[in-house]
């Protein structure tokens, strides 16, 4: 006998699925719920990590950072480096680099007539910084710096409150020059910025790069170069910069710069897979049960088909097809539900009731779930593959019945 055409097998499997519609509907509901939960949870976690990384990358590091090899362990003025040479300038001009900026970045103490705080003084090129870091876009009062020679100081909202001072007032910034002479200099506050995370508003104060260099007696030296590529996920566009690493400079992508975030991102992939598998395993008991019952009810029918000459392999394939159809319908509904619910939440989930915790973890108050294609693919592939594996045992049993025994079964 020639193998049955696929279309017939499909139709048989489809009809078998609906013979006991209650059971099928319950199982479909379970699969739909499970798949939705897999995708929704993943989307929420991805949204959170995405936001953490983007906020972190915008608060100065950039996608790739170039600095003195010692600078990371010892962020002192002594570990600054000369301005970019021609070789580096050429590399920074290549495609893949969206923006870059050199900065002076030194630990400092800022004092008003009322109070004193520790902070980091950052000398920037205002134009180069736009798009690269948060300051340029988040000025809420006063103005942003105009040029590298700007002598004004831009401080955070929290810092201005801490120091009990305000726009237009003078503050003193203290730091050291390369010879450890204490430098103190009066600054006028010309602008105030707000950041998503409150602690960022205390972490940095900004002034013009050239003005900072002259104040700190560091000539043309800079502390770091922040480089922005196309996307934080894939910094391979910027890999040519790595080749310029040498004894005088270190080139690090953000995920090595901030090991916490880097690990977070890779652990997330593991977590997503574990979550999908756990939900699937919970589902699998019901799935196997459904298939076992479906086969059990049809023993006589299967016996008859075999007696009429249907080959065992066809029976195996038919039960597997039934499993596949069940999974496919459940997956389709689950995917749809996930897409719809994520779209419905595209304005973000408001987390302000736990805002302090979110600040602690470096996450903003509004969470935007993001459904990524690769998570969709992973979920669907895992469910289909494991689901067919789970269906294998009932299918195998069905194909092994002895026709006579099966026919005479009550």
């Amino acid at each position, binding site marked *: 006998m020639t193998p049955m055409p696929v279309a017939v097998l499909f139709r048989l499997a489809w009809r078998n699925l609906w013979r006991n519609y209650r059971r099928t509907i319950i199982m479909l509901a379970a699969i739909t719920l499970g798949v939705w939960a897999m995708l929704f949870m993943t989307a*929420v976690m991805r949204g959170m990590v995405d936001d953490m990384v983007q906020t972190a990358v915008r608060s100065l590091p950039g996608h790739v950072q170039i600095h003195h090899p010692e600078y990371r*362990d010892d962020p002192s003025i002594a570990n600054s480096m000369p301005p970019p040479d021609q070789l580096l300038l050429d590399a920074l001009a290549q495609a893949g680099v969206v923006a870059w900026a050199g900065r002076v970045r030194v630990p400092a103490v800022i004092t008003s007539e009322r109070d004193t705080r520790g902070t980091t003084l950052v000398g920037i090129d205002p134009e180069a910084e736009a798009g690269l870091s948060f300051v340029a876009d988040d000025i809420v009062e006063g103005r942003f710096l105009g040029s590298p020679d700007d002598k004004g100081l831009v401080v955070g909202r929290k810092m201005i409150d801490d120091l*009990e001072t305000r726009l237009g007032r003078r503050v003193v910034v203290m*730091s050291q020059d390369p010879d*450890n002479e204490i430098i103190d200099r009066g600054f006028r506050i010309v602008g105030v910025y707000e950041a998503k995370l409150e602690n960022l508003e205390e972490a940095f104060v900004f002034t013009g790069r050239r003005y900072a260099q002259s104040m700190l007696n560091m000539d043309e030296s800079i502390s770091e170069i922040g480089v922005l590529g196309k996307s934080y996920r894939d910094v391979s566009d910027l890999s040519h910069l790595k080749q310029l690493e040498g004894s005088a400079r270190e080139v690090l992508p953000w995920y090595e710069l901030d090991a916490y975030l880097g*690990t977070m991102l890779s652990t997330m992939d593991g977590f997503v897979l574990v979550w999908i598998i756990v939900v699937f395993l919970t589902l699998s008991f019901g799935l196997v049960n459904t298939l076992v019952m479906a086969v059990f009810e049809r023993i006589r029918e299967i016996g008859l088909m075999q007696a009429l000459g249907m080959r065992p392999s066809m029976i195996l394939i038919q039960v597997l097809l039934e499993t596949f159809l069940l999974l496919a319908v459940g997956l389709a509904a689950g995917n749809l539900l996930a897409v719809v619910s994520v779209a419905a939440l595209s304005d973000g989930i408001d987390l302000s009731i736990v805002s302090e*915790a979110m600040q602690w973890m470096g996450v903003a108050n509004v969470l935007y779930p993001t459904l990524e294609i690769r998570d969709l693919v992973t979920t669907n592939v895992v469910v289909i593959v494991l689901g067919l594996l789970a269906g294998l045992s009932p299918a195998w049993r069905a194909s092994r019945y002895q026709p006579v025994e099966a026919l005479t079964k009550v």
Partner: protein
Amino acid sequence: MRVDNITLSLAWRNLWRHPRRTWLTVGAMVFSNILLVFMISLQFGMYRVMYDNSLSLITGHLQVQAEGYIDEPRIRSTVPAAGGLANALRQAMPANNVAVRAMAFALVSSAERSFGVQVVGVQPAYEPGVSNLPGLVKQGRFLNASDERAAVIGSSLSRNLKVGLGDELTLFGSGRDGSFAAGIANVVGIFESGSNDIDRSFMQIPLTDFQEIFFMEDQAHSIVVMTPDLFELEPAMATMRYIVDADGLVVHDWDELQPGLKQSVQADMASAWFMYAVLIVLVAFSVLNTQLMSVLDRTREFGIVMALGLAPIRLGRLVFLETGIMAGMGLLLGVAAGSAVVSWFGFYGFTYPGLEEMSARFNLPGRIYPSASFASLVWGPSVVFLACLAAAIYPAAKLLRLQPVAAMRAA
């Protein structure tokens, strides 16, 4: 529900008419119960470490501060006559540890480097009772009562300032009245807390030195209290409110002092409960399916016994009993296996790749030890048990509407 022996043995036998189906259903319960027991115990274990580590390093359980200092920690928002007040507290509540602290920012310079640092004035004799930082001194020693011009700093700070034990540091800052403050201190100890942020930004000096350098007179910024039990703060708070009977002073508990902590636990719980709810509902679906099938399988049989005069309510009871037996087996096996898993990990600890790097940021260890308690072992499985019983409502209700004649004719 009143159950006689016959119903019980009927229910038991019915379950074993399809052993595979019964075991698969019980298996789903056991699987989810083990997961729940393990996850919940792990959560509790982690929360305890989170609370301990973040409170015992610096914050303590309770603090007396000037009103408003918590939101705007200004050097002139002080607690007057802090030493005397702390003594009064020690006498009133001997079971608690009490220590005075004062805090200011200063530019700290060594021969080679200068950094902005948070300078904390502490009482050398009492500080070890409210903080575990003194115990983390790895080189040299912690401050002692007779120290003058001494300082303990973090390991990263000592590296960055390029100083070792015995080296001199200079402090520049502003005093309580806003005037210029300066002082010197010799490094007597270097601590390693494991958190780079803390090791880079803290310096402890004796309170008396602090008060002299920053023109504090007898004032300080907080009185830190460590109670025997973090969740039993009410008695200590009441005593403190009674003794600290001055205008402008307030008592804060750890939740006010570190609002991120409790909320992180709540946020984590919320996401955990979402996951648990999904697992539980899925198990309930599995039970619903099984029981509905088992009812539909027996339609004819049920029709016959009803025709013989059995009340439909008794059949409903039978279905519930069957579900209850399965759910009970799931509960017992789940709790037993879950406890085994928890005690194994409770001994060896649980970790996964990346945990260590991530927890370092919050000053947590790289291994979590699940903490087993009656609640953590029984909570999850009990909810599963109830969910399974709830899932049997629909199949059981179907029986009540069963017509004997139609049922007997069913295929």
